[in-house]
C-alpha cells in the first residue's frame, strides 16, 4: 500500500512539473548564474551544460569544504542530495552558451600551444566537452577561470596531479603570462 501511495505522489509531482514548464527548483539560481544557467554577468560561472555527475560532485565538494568558495558552500548546505540531483539534471540539459567577451588574440594564439601540450588530454576538444568531469572551459568567463586557477594555486581544492604539473610547467616556461595565455585561449572560443 505504502509503495503505491509513494508512486502516486511522485506521479503528481511529475505532472505539476510538466504543467509549469519544468522543475521550479533551479530558477532561483538565475540571479547569480543567469537564466537557464547561462551567466550574463562577467564573473559568475555559466553552469549550464556540465554533466549531472560533474554538477553533483561540485555541490558536494562545496558542502564538505573541498572546494574554495566565497559563498557557494553556504548555499549548497541548504539542499538535499535529491534536490542537488534534480538541479544537476536540469542544468545538464541546458546548452552552455559561450560568453561574448573581449580577449587578446595574439595571447590566445600562444596559449593554444600550451593548452594542446598540457591540458588537452583532459580538457578535450579545446575545452568544449565535459568528459571525465573537468567541466567546460571554452567560453567560460575569463574572470572565473582566473579565480579558479588562483584557488588551485592557494591549495584548498583537490586537482589532478597531471593538471598541477601542467600548470607548473607553463609557469616554469612562460611565467604568469604563459598561464594567462592558456586562459585567454579557452575564453576566446566562440
Amino acid at each position, binding site marked *: 500500500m505504502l509503495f503505491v501511495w509513494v508512486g502516486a505522489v511522485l506521479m*503528481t*509531482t511529475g*505532472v*505539476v512539473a510538466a*504543467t*509549469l*514548464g519544468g522543475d*521550479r*527548483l533551479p*530558477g*532561483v*539560481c*538565475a*540571479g*547569480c*548564474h*543567469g*537564466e537557464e544557467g547561462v*551567466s*550574463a*554577468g*562577467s*564573473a*559568475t560561472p555559466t553552469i549550464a551544460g556540465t554533466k549531472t555527475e560533474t554538477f553533483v560532485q561540485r555541490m558536494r565538494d562545496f558542502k564538505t569544504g573541498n572546494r574554495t568558495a*566565497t*559563498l557557494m558552500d*553556504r*548555499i549548497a*548546505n*541548504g*539542499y538535499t542530495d535529491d*534536490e542537488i540531483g534534480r538541479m544537476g539534471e536540469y542544468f545538464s540539459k541546458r546548452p552552455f552558451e559561450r560568453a561574448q567577451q573581449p580577449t587578446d588574440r595574439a595571447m590566445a594564439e600562444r596559449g593554444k600551444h600550451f593548452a594542446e601540450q598540457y591540458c588537452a588530454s583532459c580538457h578535450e576538444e579545446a575545452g568544449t566537452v565535459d568528459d571525465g568531469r573537468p567541466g567546460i572551459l571554452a567560453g567560460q*568567463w575569463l*574572470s572565473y577561470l582566473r*579565480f579558479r586557477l*588562483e584557488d588551485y594555486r*592557494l591549495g584548498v581544492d583537490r586537482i589532478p596531479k597531471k593538471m598541477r604539473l601542467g600548470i607548473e610547467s607553463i609557469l616554469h616556461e612562460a611565467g604568469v603570462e604563459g598561464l594567462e595565455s592558456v586562459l585567454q585561449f579557452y575564453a576566446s572560443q566562440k
Partner: protein
Amino acid sequence: MELGMSNVTRRQFLQWTAAVGTTGFPLTGRGSSGRVVVIGGGVGGITAAKSIKKAAPSLNVILVEQKKHYSACFMSNEVLAHSRSLESLRFTYDGLWKYGITVVNQSAVAIDAAVHKVILEGGAVLEYDRLIVSPGIDLRYDVIVGYNRRVAEKLPHAWTSGDQIGLLRTQLEAMQDGGTVLIAAPKNPFRCPSAPYERASQIAWYLQRYKPKSKIILLDAKEIFSQQALFMEAWRALYGFGTQNSLIDWHPASEEGTVTRVDPDAMAVYSGELDTVTKGAVINLIPPQMAGMIARTSGLTDDTYWCPVNKTTFESTKAKDVHILGDACNAQDMPKSAYSAASQAQCVAAVVVSAMSGVGEIPLFTHLNACYSILGQDWAISTVGVYRSNSTGTILQSVEGSGGTSSPGAGATQRKHAVEYAHSWYQNITHALFT
C-alpha cells in the same frame, strides 16, 4: 489607522466602477485562458510576470507600473563613492513586451478583491482572476517628529529612487572638507537590512579620497545590525574604526542612537532618551518603512503596516486570490531584498499557474536569498539564506545548517573576488529583469 490617505471604501469603489464602467480598458475576457494582473513593475512584479508567461503562455498577463523607468536601489550606494553612474541604475520596460506581457504605465489606485477588480488612476478598471501585488515600500512620515515629504527633499533618504540618490550625491559633493555626514538607520524590519552600513562604507570611501577631514556619524535605532562583525572588521581595516581618527562613528540605540525628531532649518536631529542633538552638513535620514500605499489603502496590511501572507503561497490572509510579495509582505525569516523578491515571485508564479490550470497541490518551494555589500577597494562581503515553508503556510524559515555570512578574516583574495561576483550578480539580475 492608515496614514496619509483614507481607506477607499467598498462603496466608493463601486460608485467609481459604475461611473467609469469597464470600458476604460479593453478586456479580453477571463474564460479558460484567464488573466493575471500584477501591480508594481519592480523586482518582484517583473519576475512574477515573466515567470508566469514563460510557464503558461496562454495566460493574459498585465503589468501595472506607475513609473516610466525603473531605478534600482540595489548597487545604488556605489553611486555615492563615484564608482557607478546614476544612468547604470535606470531601466526601461520596453524589453517586456516581447514576452507577451502588457505593460500599463499607470498607477493602480484601488483593489476590490471581492469582485476581482483593480482600478487605475485614469479610471480604467482591470478585472483579474489572480492579482499579484509587489509595490515595494513607502516611507513612514509619522514616526519622527518634524519629518515629512518636503523635509525629505532636504534630508534625503535615498531609499526608493534614483532622484534621491542623485540628491544625496550632490550634497556630498557640495559639502566642505571637514563636514559631518549624519546617517540615521531605522529599526527592523526595513528594506535591505545591510544597506545603511554598506552606504556608510561607500561614503567613507568617498570621504577618504576627497574630503579626508570629514566624518560620518551613524545613529542607529538598533542595538545590533546585519553582519555587524564583518562591517566592523572592514571599517577597522579601511577607515580607522575604533581609533581617534575613525571616519565612522556608530551609536546604537543604547547610546542615544534612536532619532526622534528633526530640525531641518538647523540641520539637526534629536535622538535618544536625553534628546541629544547632532548636527550634520549632510543628513541622510532613513526613516522607518511600511508596505506601499496600494497595499495599505486596499486593506492588505495589518497593524505592523506590512502585509500578512500565507508563507507557502504568498496569498494574502486578508483577500482571496491576491498574492503579495517582495518588500511589502511579511516573509518572516526572509529579509526584504531584491533576491528574496525574485525568489518569492517565482514561487507565486508556480502557485498561480498551477491554480489557474487546475493542477492543485504543488511541491513546497525552496527559496534563496543572497545579498552582497561592497565596503571599499577590493572588499565585499555576503549573506545568503535558503528557506522553506511548512505545508500549512504558517512558517517560512531558514533551512538548518545552511546560509550565513562570509567569515571574518576570509582573506584578501576572497574579498576581492566577491567584489567582481557582486557586480556580476547585478549584471545577471538586471539582465533577467529587463532584457
